[in-house]
C-alpha cells in the first residue's frame, strides 16, 4: 500500500456571524494516500469548500475559528503553523485549483509571469530557467503555441484554456497534493471531459494526490478512487468509488443518486428528490442532522447522533439504519434498478 500523505482528524471549524456561531465543519476525519484521488461531494453549504480551504489554511481568522482537530500533512500538523510558515507550504507542497478561471487569474498580468512568479517564489532557479519551465508547463497542460501564449493576457484565452493555465500555475512547484474546488463546474461538458483527462494524466505521471470537490456525481464516478459524502458539516458516508455507487448505505447518498436523471430514465417517472433543505448550522439539530429530510428516520435519529458504522474494510456510513437492531431498509427502487442496470451492462461488457 502506498504511503499516507494527508490525515485529517476531527476537524471542526466555526464562523462568528451576527446571527450566531455557524458550525460549518463538525468533526471531519479522512486520509489520503500518495497518487490517490478523493472526491468530496455534497450540496452547497455542506462544508465541502470550507474543509478544503481549511487544509490550505485559507479560512480568514476572524471570523473563522479552528475549534479543534489536526491536519497532518506528511506527519506534520498544519493547524498551529504561522502564516509565514504556511506560505512555504501553499503553492509549493499543496496547490489549489479554483472553480472560476475568470476570477482566479490576474487580469493585468501576462499568464507567463503568473506561472514564473510561483516558480521563482518556491524554487532556486534563474529567470530564464523559470521561463523555460513555464513554457514546458503550458505544453504539458495542452495549450497550443506555448511560446506565443506565454506573452498573452488571460482575456485572450477561452474558459477551458484559462482553466488549463490555472492548472499549470498549480503544478508550477510540483506539489504533492492538489486541491481542486469544483474545477469543471463553470465549463462546458466537452471542455470538462478534456480537463478531467488532463488531471488524470498529470496524476499518472507525477503521483500527485488529488482532493476533488464537486457536486456532480458523474464527474466523481469518472475521476475518484475514494469518495466522501458530506452533509451539514460532517462526512456521512465514506468508501471506494464502487462502494458508494454500487452499494450506497446512507439515505442521503440514495437521495443524491436518485435525483440525478439517467440517460435511460423513463421520462414519465418523476425524479426522486430529497424533500426540504439543509439545516441551519448556527443551531445544528439534535441527533442525526439528516433526520428531518429522511423518509426512513427513526425515533433515535432525533435523539442521538449516529456513529460511523463500518460496512466493509473500506466503507463507512453514519446512519442508525446500520445498527444491528434497526429494521432492514432495502434500497429505493429507482436507485436499485439503476445499479442493477449498470452491473448488468458491466457483466455484458466482460463477456
Amino acid at each position, binding site marked *: 500500500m502506498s504511503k499516507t500523505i494527508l490525515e485529517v482528524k476531527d476537524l471542526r471549524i466555526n464562523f462568528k456571524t451576527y446571527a450566531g456561531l455557524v458550525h460549518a465543519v463538525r468533526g471531519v476525519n479522512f486520509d489520503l494516500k500518495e497518487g490517490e484521488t478523493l472526491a468530496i461531494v455534497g*450540496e*452547497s453549504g455542506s462544508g465541502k469548500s470550507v474543509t478544503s480551504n481549511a487544509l490550505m489554511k485559507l479560512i480568514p481568522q476572524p471570523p473563522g475559528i479552528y475549534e479543534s482537530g489536526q491536519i497532518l500533512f506528511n506527519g506534520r500538523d498544519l493547524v498551529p503553523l504561522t502564516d509565514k510558515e504556511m506560505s512555504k507550504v501553499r503553492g509549493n507542497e499543496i496547490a489549489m485549483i479554483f472553480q472560476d478561471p475568470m476570477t482566479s487569474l490576474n487580469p493585468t498580468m501576462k499568464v507567463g509571469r503568473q506561472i514564473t512568479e510561483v516558480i521563482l517564489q518556491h524554487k532556486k532557479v534563474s529567470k530564464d530557467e523559470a521561463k523555460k519551465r513555464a513554457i514546458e508547463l503550458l505544453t504539458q497542460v495542452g495549450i497550443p503555441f506555448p511560446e506565443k501564449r506565454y506573452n498573452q493576457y488571460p482575456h485572450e484565452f477561452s*474558459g477551458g484554456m484559462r482553466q488549463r493555465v490555472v492548472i499549470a500555475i498549480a503544478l508550477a512547484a510540483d506539489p504533492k497534493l492538489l486541491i481542486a474546488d469544483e474545477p469543471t463546474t463553470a465549463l*462546458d*461538458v*466537452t*471542455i*470538462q*471531459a*478534456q480537463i*478531467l*483527462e488532463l488531471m488524470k494524466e498529470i496524476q499518472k505521471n507525477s503521483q500527485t494526490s488529488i482532493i476533488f470537490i464537486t*457536486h*456532480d*456525481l*458523474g*464527474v*466523481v*464516478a*469518472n475521476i*475518484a478512487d475514494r469518495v466522501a459524502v458530506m452533509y451539514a458539516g460532517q462526512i456521512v458516508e465514506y468508501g471506494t*468509488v*464502487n462502494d458508494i*455507487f*454500487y452499494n450506497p448505505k446512507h439515505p442521503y447518498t440514495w*437521495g*443524491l*443518486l*436518485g*435525483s*440525478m*436523471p*439517467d*440517460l435511460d*430514465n423513463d*421520462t414519465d417517472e*418523476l*425524479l*426522486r*428528490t*430529497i424533500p426540504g*433543505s439543509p439545516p441551519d448550522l448556527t443551531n445544528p439539530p439534535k441527533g442525526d442532522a439528516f433526520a428531518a429530510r429522511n423518509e426512513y428516520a427513526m425515533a433515535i435519529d432525533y435523539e442521538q447522533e449516529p456513529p460511523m458504522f463500518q460496512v466493509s474494510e473500506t466503507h463507512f456510513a453514519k446512519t442508525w439504519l446500520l445498527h444491528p437492531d434497526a429494521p432492514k431498509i432495502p434500497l429505493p427502487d429507482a436507485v436499485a434498478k439503476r445499479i442493477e442496470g*449498470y452491473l448488468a*451492462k*458491466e457483466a455484458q*461488457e466482460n463477456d
Partner: protein
Amino acid sequence: MTKTGAKKILEIKNLQQHFGSPSNPIKAVDGISFDVYEGETLGLVGESGCGKSTTGRSIIRLYDITGGEIVFDGENVHGKKSKNELKKFNRQMQMIFQDPYASLNPRMTAGEIIGEAFDIHGLYKDKKERRAKIQELLEAVGLNKEHANRYAHEFSGGQRQRIGIARALSLDPKFIIADEPISALDVSIQAQVVNLLKQLQKERGLTYLFIAHDLSMVKYISDRIAVMYRGKIMEIGKADDIYNHPVHPYTKSLLSAIPLPDPMSEKRRQRIQYKHTEVDESATYHEVGDQHYVYGTADLVKTWVANR
C-alpha cells in the same frame, strides 16, 4: 420539418441574429429553422457561445432580429405591433431565467414580484382577488401564502427559482422559454424544480423551449432535442433518437462527454473528438428518420448515416 397530428405553436424560419458592425457581424444565430408543437418540450442544447440563449431571447422579442421570421400561433412575432397587440403577445409567452439571484428585484416582496404583471395588464384589480391569485400561484409552485411578504434574499436558491416560475405563470401563458433554469441549483434541488416544471406542464398544457447544457437533464425533460453549434442547428429529432442513434459527429462528440454516475463504465469511457468540417452553400437539412433531421451537404450526411 413537420409532424402530423399536433398543432404548431411556434415556427422559426431561417432566423438570423447578428451583433456588431454590419460589415463584420458576429453571427450568433446563423439561419436556423424549427417548429415547436403545442404541449411538447423542445430541448435546445449546445456549448456556451453556440447561440442557444440568443435564440430564446430573439423568440421572445428581447432582440430585434436581423433576418428570418418567427411565427407564434399564426402571427408574426417581430411584425409591427401596437401596444395592445404586444401586451397580448406577452401574455402568451413568458421566460424563466438562469440566475434566480439576479432575476428577482431585491427591493420587492415575492408577492409584488408575482403580481407586477397584473398591474401592467390591468388584471385582478380587486385586492382580495389579487391576493387569492398570488396565493394560488405560490401554492402551484410549492410555496405557501406566508411567503408572499418576504424578500428575495430570505429565500434559498431553489425557492427563488420557484418564485421565478410563479412569475412566469402569472398571466397563464401557453408557451414558456426556460433558459438554463436549473444550472445554478444543487443536484437535489434541480430534481425538485424539474419535477415541478413537468407537473405544471401536465396540469396547464404548457409548451416549453428548454435551453440547457446539462444533457442528461435535457434528455429527461424533452420530447424532442435540437443540438446547436456555432449559430446553427446541427441535428434535431426525438430525444430517444438523438441519444441512441445520433447521426451528426458533433452530437456524438457531445454525448460522449457526459459523465455518468457509473464508475465502471467511466473507466472505459472513450471520448469522441469533434473536428468541424466547413460546409458549402448546398448544406441543408436532410431527413434521416422519423422527425429526425441533420444539417450538412448531401454527401456528408450520406457518410454520417453510413457510419451511424
